[in-house]
């Protein structure tokens, strides 16, 4: 079955990200994602605070992983380590063979644009661009797809998420759910193998959240790997694996069964 969201399954036409060749050497395993002994400590005038205390986590291709935990437990910090949005104080983060923790800020941006789609709780669309232009922007930044094809691809992605009708509207003119769908289309723009979503349904009503969740399921079926931070136990029960974090440590990793049950 051809993918709804990619031209070539799991690829964006540019292969594995190799900013300088070194980062792919010495990958510790064949896992798509591996987090090894990651510690993250924040320093402030009130004192040091360790958000992650030596996290180890592996994720394989095609998994739909939910990271759950209470507010302030470190789940968003963990996803920030994986997406390269924040850097570990110590430890390693390997994504699809790339040592993310070693990349410079510029290299991370380029890597993330091609290899990893990020979805935020508050959508984070650029307010001055239309929905379509927001989706085209990652292709523009990463020079993926020939310029004449970018518009077509953006429209295609928006059609798939049901937003073709609002493609030329500004984000402020569409609903929150539609903004999040547009953000997902944007995350898929460069056809990355992994999507990382931080509370993607946290700001949506339950009906819209359900639509988003089903969309994620379709993406996983097509071979995408999704990491999703959530504090919604219902959603967490419907993924392939649940990682529970308590006070900066992984408490337990549930096996891949819940999603099968749901289906």
């Amino acid at each position, binding site marked *: 079955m*051809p993918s709804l969201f990619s*031209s070539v399954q799991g690829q964006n036409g540019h292969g594995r990200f190799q900013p300088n060749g070194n980062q792919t050497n010495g990958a510790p395993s064949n896992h798509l994602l591996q987090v090894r002994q990651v510690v993250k400590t924040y320093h402030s*005038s009130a004192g040091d605070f360790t958000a992650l205390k030596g996290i180890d986590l592996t994720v394989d291709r095609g998994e739909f992983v939910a990271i759950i935990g209470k507010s302030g437990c470190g789940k968003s910090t963990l996803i*920030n380590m994986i*997406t*390269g*949005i*924040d850097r570990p104080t110590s430890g390693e983060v390997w994504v699809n063979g790339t040592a993310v923790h070693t990349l410079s*800020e*510029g290299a991370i*941006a*380029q890597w*993330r*644009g*091609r290899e990893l*789609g*990020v979805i*935020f709780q508050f959508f*984070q*669309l*650029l*307010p*001055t*661009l239309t929905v379509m*232009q*927001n989706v*085209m*922007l*990652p292709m*523009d*930044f*990463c020079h993926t*797809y020939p*310029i*004449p*094809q*970018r*518009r*077509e*691809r953006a*429209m*295609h992605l928006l059609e798939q998420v049901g937003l073709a009708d609002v493609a030329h509207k500004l984000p402020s003119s569409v609903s929150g759910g539609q903004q999040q769908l547009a953000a997902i289309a*944007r*995350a898929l*723009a*460069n056809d990355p193998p992994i999507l990382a979503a931080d509370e993607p349904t946290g700001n949506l009503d339950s009906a819209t959240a359900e639509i988003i969740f089903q969309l994620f399921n379709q993406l996983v079926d097509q071979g995408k790997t999704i990491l999703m931070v959530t504090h919604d136990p219902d959603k967490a029960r419907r993924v392939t694996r649940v990682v529970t974090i308590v006070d900066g440590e992984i408490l337990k990793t549930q096996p891949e069964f819940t999603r099968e049950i749901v289906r």
Partner: protein
Amino acid sequence: MREKAIYASRSTHHAKNMIIRPRWKKVFADLWGNKSRTLLVVLSIAIGVFAVGMVANAYLILAEASTVGYETVNPTSAFILTSPFGDDLVDTIRDMPEVADAEGRRVRSVRMFLHGRWYNTALSAQNYDDGRVNLLQSTGGKAAPGDHELLIDQTAVALTDFAIGDTAIVEMSDGRHYEMTIVGKVRDQNSNPSINTGGINAYTTLDTFEWLGETADYNRLLYVAAENKHDRAYIQALTGDIKDKIEKSGYMVYFTLVFPEPGVSPTKFIIQSIRSVLGILAAVSLALSAFLVFNTMSALILRQVQYIGIMKAIGGLTRNLVGMYLLMVAAFGLLAYAVAAPLAAVAAQQFAEFIASPGLLDLRLPVYRLRPEIMTLELAVSLLVPVLAALPAIWRGTRVTVFAALNSTGLSQENLSNSLLEQVIERLRFVTGPWLLSLGNILRNRGRAALTLGTLVLGGAVFIGVLSVGASADETVAELGQAYRFDVQVEFERPYRLTQIEEYALHVPGVARVEGWTVVNGAILNAAGEEGNSMTILAPPGGSELTHPKIVAGRWLKPDDQNAVVIDSSLLREDPSLQVGDEIMVKINGRDYPWTIVGVYQSIGVTVWYESYANYAYVSRLAREVQQTRRVQLVTNAHDPASQLEIAARVNDYFQQVGIRVSSVETSSDMRGVQEDQFNIIVSVLLVMALLITLVGGLGLAGTMSMNVLERTREIGVMRAVGASDGSVLRVILVEGVLMALISWSMAIFLAVPAGKLLSSVVGNHIVNGQLSYVYSVPGALLWLALVLVVAVMASYVPARNASRLTVRDVLAYE
């Protein structure tokens, strides 16, 4: 494959829409989406571009008018006053290979009654059919006068609103009156304009001179060198040769004059002073503009940090973002260029027309044209200044990490350390809530506050400085006016016995006292014994109380001084090596006399007639005019201008009645008025400067206040959530603006001292050949306080009102 095909088939259809990539669309959407911010940034840049464009444009227009325009009248290189001569001598000089052209003129001092007043007038005649040197340019009416007709130098509009068709009465020195009709106006770029002399230049025919009882001969020879037209030494040598030739032809040479800068318009020094003053204006405006742009761009980038984070999160590289924001800045610059360049061109033309108007410099402006060099300069300023000013903010903003960007709360990023803020707040316990909050807001964002204060302080300092120059000019004019402690000055065509003149003058009702002076003309000799600059020696009696010129070096004359001379400060401009104590040789009536320079007095403007002072007893002896006078100063019973004029007329009439030949009568009020007029041009320029500075300062404060409020929208929401009323929110923001204005004012009043002294020095060097007597303008400081407070309230009111109208829900959803 299927999808690729779909993309390919659709791509042609949408090809037109693909021209602008999303990142550039974001740039333009940001520009268009926030119009008030765009307007603010564009205006900030435009002010600098406008100032530079206007100054450069105006200077080029005026410089071209005074150089290219001046050359078209074939200006004389020098002139020689002689005994009467005819066309044969003119032909002889014209035939000299070193002479490009020559022309004879007859020039005579007369008095002219026009529109109810008498004016000292230089009446000249020339061959209008064959004009070759110092050409007159007709600006209205007839180009050449007929018999008993006059052309008037149009700079006379500075004195009287004359019109073609008016009748003027010309009074010769023997008292005879002649009615003549004004038939045309002319521009004479080589005459001393009325604004400088208080007199009129008029032109008629040689035949009319005969009708006036004179001979139809020339008495002044003008000539243009065939080469080295701007080389003073060459012209001086040539003048020596011509003088020899004239004398060998049997004529007397009374006086030679080589211009300090031959072939250069006498207006050059004024244009240079305008350029200096306006140059300072342009530099200050540009600096203020850069401050504003830096401030605005810092705020803009701060507001964009979250979006920078998003763009980085989806693959945007720092260089992509730097490129985007630089493009935005360049777009701001281009918009500013589009606004400022045409306005600068119009303003420059208007300004040049004002300066070139007959009442001021009377220049013929070149035909309006676009000047590519100015357009390029403006474009460079439009692009470079904002890019350089914005670069630090862009560099800092785009290097922020995604994590930091996405976790930004939208609050100010530049905070005082908590301990310092706590200390300040602790010490201000007596200050109530809103004031404390306003002060805290200023202290919290020190960088922004410093730049805004910098803009306002610089603006205030220059504003007060400009008004201080005006006050200093007034003070200087008052001091220079001490040279005229008499009421009426009468000059005679030839020397008369002093006792006789005293007797006649005291016979006139209203005259209380008479003091006889004498006047001799000479030429300063250089080391080789050649004649150089001319020097007119005014000789009041020793210990005279009727004149006290402002001494800038050395001392004033003592009653027992012999060959001591107090020289004109403009002579130092010509020969800076002259010093107090130096001995100079001056040729007077064919003999060389040594003089010791004992002092330098301050004069006004640039002149070729250097006037020096020496004691009457000594001068009258060497001029062989002991107990005789060529000029008397009268003290009248009443000293107001009207009384002075009335008594001057009576004195003139009486002298003529008793057969004394008067060449000019002036009142001290008119002489002081002429000095004040010298400052008119520069004061006009300074006023333009003050106006622009106010505009820039106001815009700066308005912009900063708007941005501050915009940035603190969330805080305002919090204030409202904890019970702040509309009035409280309004008050906090207004108080912040007022505090900023007060702080800036208290700094500006001190910085205004060096600013005012610098400007005074620039103006002084050009106008009074030295320093102005500096006076700090207290009214200027108070006026700036009022202006800055009004601007602060106005600039804060709109954002404050908008902020006070926001609901808590609106505000907290803002970010």
